[in-house]
């Protein structure tokens, strides 16, 4: 029992990272039809920002704020430079461009920043472990879950209670009509990217608090898993994306703990195979695409 709870805690923590990224991806996808591969590089950029700031002795609250600003600005810049000229292009064009942008950022980081992995000097309190009965809860994992839940709640409030949020939900349904109603397209699109960048920044902070270090390729597996979370939940549904992220995280963690010997290394492969299996039965995803953005 204790062990099961332990595994669930690990799974939920891993799932939180996927869920935060999946949320940003689903948001941009539902408005622009863009599968943004370069989303993973936002996490990488967040990681390098943390590395640079911590190694220059910045206190952690400053690092937190500056990292979020860096990833948000990076996401907005990405939209402005790479994707705006292609607004309205078909899905393949957008997809290939985002794949290219992803590699562009990776190569740029390799050449101009560092080709070797770099350790991040995170504060010591991230190593704290709390004990509840026999279950040991690493502080980072508890914080991760709490932050993720808060982020989802705040995002819901934003999307339901503000004019801009409502406009974004409408744009996810039918962008052309929303523009006809006098909402400026660029405002909606830039906001979507900014929010996705902010969420990626949160994911980066939580991820690198316990990851051994940052390298230029660190974002790619994360973004692929987040994408799988998105389609598992059902494309175009934000809560589906969150759910999908958590399911994938839990599946990976449970398989990781319960497979024996050499099979442990295959746990992620099994988790992915299970997800594809679920899609075989429910191609529209767990939540289904009938419902749109939130």
């Amino acid at each position, binding site marked *: 029992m204790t062990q099961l709870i332990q595994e669930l805690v690990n799974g939920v923590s891993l799932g939180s990272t996927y869920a935060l990224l999946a949320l940003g991806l689903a948001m941009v*996808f539902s408005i622009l*039809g863009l*599968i943004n591969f370069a989303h993973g590089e936002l996490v990488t950029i967040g990681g390098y920002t943390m590395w640079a700031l911590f190694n220059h002795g910045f206190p952690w609250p400053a690092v937190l704020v500056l990292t979020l600003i860096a990833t948000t600005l990076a996401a907005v810049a990405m939209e402005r430079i790479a994707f705006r*000229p*292609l607004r309205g*292009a078909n*899905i*393949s*064009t957008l*997809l*290939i*461009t985002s*794949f*290219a942008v992803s*590699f*562009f950022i*990776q*190569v740029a980081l*390799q*050449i*101009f920043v560092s*080709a070797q992995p770099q350790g991040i000097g995170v504060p010591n309190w991230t190593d704290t472990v709390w004990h509840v009965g026999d279950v040991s809860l690493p502080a980072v994992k508890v914080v991760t879950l709490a932050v993720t839940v808060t982020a989802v709640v705040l995002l819901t409030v934003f999307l339901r209670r503000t004019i801009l949020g409502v406009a974004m939900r409408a744009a996810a349904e039918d962008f052309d009509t929303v523009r006809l109603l006098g909402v400026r397209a660029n405002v909606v699109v830039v906001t979507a990217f900014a929010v996705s960048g902010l969420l990626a920044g949160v994911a980066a902070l939580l991820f690198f608090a316990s990851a051994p270090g940052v390298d230029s390729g660190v974002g*790619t*597996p994360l973004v*692929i898993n987040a*994408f*799988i979370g*998105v*389609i598992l939940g059902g*494309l175009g549904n934000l809560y589906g994306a969150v759910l999908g992220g958590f399911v994938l995280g839990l599946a990976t963690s449970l398989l990781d703990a319960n497979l024996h010997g*050499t099979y442990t*290394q*295959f746990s*992620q*492969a099994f988790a*992915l*195979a299970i*997800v*594809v*299996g679920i*899609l*075989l039965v429910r*191609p529209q*995803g767990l939540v289904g695409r009938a419902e749109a953005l939130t």
Partner: protein
Amino acid sequence: MSRLPRYWAVQSAVGTWPIVGGLALTALWAWARGGDQSKFTHFFINVVLVLALQLFSGNSGILSFGHMAFVGTGAYLAGLLTIDPALKSTFAGLPHFLVSPHWNWFLALLAAACAAGVLAAVSGLAILRLDGASAVIAILALLLIADIVFTAWTGVTRGAGGLYPLPSHATLTHTLAVAVAAVLIARLFKDSRTGLLLQASREDAFSAASVGVAVRQYRVRAWILSGMLAGAGGALFGWWITTITPANFFLEPTFALIVMFIVGGTRTVGGAVIGAAVVTLVQEELRNYEDSSVDLGILKLHRLTGLTQFALVLMILVVMYFRREGILGRRELDESLRSLVRRRTHAATR
């Protein structure tokens, strides 16, 4: 539905003459030049790989990021079937039925194609139930699964340390023969009934389905054939590079493959071959400068890690922003030439 012309297969096969001619001339040049021919064999192998991708993605319109899973399967299997058994007996954990075989290259190539075909059949039944963006991501999941298996199944693949030394079966003759076969297969498939119906579904899946095209069935057929071709290409790739690691079949080569596919034009066999030529040229010419240092006066770069990737990124961005149809556009080379000649004669008679 109107029928295909009676001798469509002959017409299509003959229509590949500019490409086959080009490949033959390249081979002649390599033979005449003598010396190291590995650049040329690399080109022919890239032709096979990109045509495998073109066969599925070009006709169906579903971009595949997963073909390197088939290429890897082919490379590992063909490698294991052709490495000297005396050497293999020293590999710890290799299943016994893989230790004894010492096949000739052609049989191993066929086995690689079949194994990749089986993987395609199994994965295709699940993945191709999905459509659009979901299908793209599910195919990507296949690549991820394959990478994990190549890395973790150390008994067979030797893991990240790599499987070596594979015999150098990728000679100019072998690769040329397979490349020409791939050109014919890709072109014949494209002009076949299945190919045409699949292209109809690429243009408008709903309309195609509404007039009775079994879209999913045709997609699965293309996926399997494409997987087999990729497996065969993988076998050649393994024998060319002689040491294979999981990284040879993950994201960077996937990106290179996509660039080949896009740059020349996704809809044509000729475009794919031109894309392979351009990318091979970039890969081979920039290899010497990889990891070198550059002094730009104000800026001193110590190690240009990922220079080839960078060139590929720039190429794809240029194509995406300025010429989305690729170099060739919609028509095959022979079709363009024919219409050019027709226009000339038309103008002359008038």
